[in-house]
């Protein structure tokens, strides 16, 4: 099972800054192991961030993103105590959802 993300969300002057650290191998599918076999591609393809139930960011990821990706963004709105939910889905169909309260 996929490991948890670390999400931080803080609101200030009507703007919420969200920082997300994801645990993912982000294998490109271009690399070979010591035995010369291709290491199968395994990377996040989609990411969605919701403030309460409203999508505030939707992103497409690909194999050029590093292992254990870090994403930071800001959106207008959000208040202390609101829910921030982040979900990613990868090319193997695995997914992970984590949430925090905005501080």
């Amino acid at each position, binding site marked *: 099972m996929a490991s948890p993300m670390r999400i931080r969300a803080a609101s200030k002057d009507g703007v919420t800054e969200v920082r997300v650290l994801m645990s993912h191998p982000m294998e490109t599918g271009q690399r070979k192991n010591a035995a010369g076999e291709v290491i199968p591609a395994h990377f996040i393809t989609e990411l969605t961030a919701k403030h309460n139930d409203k999508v505030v960011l939707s992103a497409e990821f690909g194999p050029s993103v590093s292992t254990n990706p*870090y994403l930071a963004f800001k959106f207008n709105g959000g208040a202390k105590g609101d829910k921030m939910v982040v979900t990613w889905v990868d090319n193997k169909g695995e997914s992970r959802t984590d949430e925090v309260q905005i501080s």
Partner: protein
Amino acid sequence: MKRKLMAAAIGVTAAFAAPLAFTSEELNFDAYRQMLADGNPAELFEMEGEELWVTARGPKNATLEQCDLGLGPGVVEGAAAQLPRYFADTGKVQDLESRLMHCMETLQGIPSGEIIGGKFRQGERGKLASLVAYVVTHSKGKPIAVDVSHPKMQDMYAMGEKVFFYRTGAMDFSCASCHGEDGKRIRATHLPNITTNKGAAEGWTSWPAYRVSNSQFWTFQHRLWDCFRQQRTAEPVFASDVTIALSVFLAAKSNGYEAQWPGVKR
């Protein structure tokens, strides 16, 4: 003909050498490190370690919450900044890794041999590294405060110093061969002058660290192991006295400098 070839070879070298002549400042990694500091993926290991600390595991099905890292059972805050230290209960000087290993064995029944005989980043040694990430994060920003007054600490410091200058291996290198002068580098990596307190602190306060080049979290034992390899000498046994002695030497020289743990490296 041969002479002509050589001249051509020299020409090629010179042509390539010029653009590669960076100064140390141009290769300064600090700016890159600052950019990465905010999202240091070492946090993912820290999270795992935090969970491991409170998870009942091993043959004794116990947590590590009673583990004494030197400041009393269960105290994690600030503990790493004061390690290595002499522990009366084991009669030994222990660094963070060997102390955690002791706790895992005594509290949880996980045999130390499994970790010592294991591989970095795998099995129980991998879990130990996550615990290290958790513990060191709770000393971030604290000044290093290693007490070397105990005679066994003094012995370890003296041994560490001796090992640091001891030349051995296929190339007859000592640690000082690569870490004994200011302003040196290997490829793009700046090499701190560990014979000075400032240089020792540069290394000690920035490891354990997450390495962006291979997405791995390395403990200080892992860092040292790799430098033994770079020295082209025998692999040190995990958490053996020689590794702890070197850590005492480095940590004591770093006293008063602020811990940047967990670090982020190339």
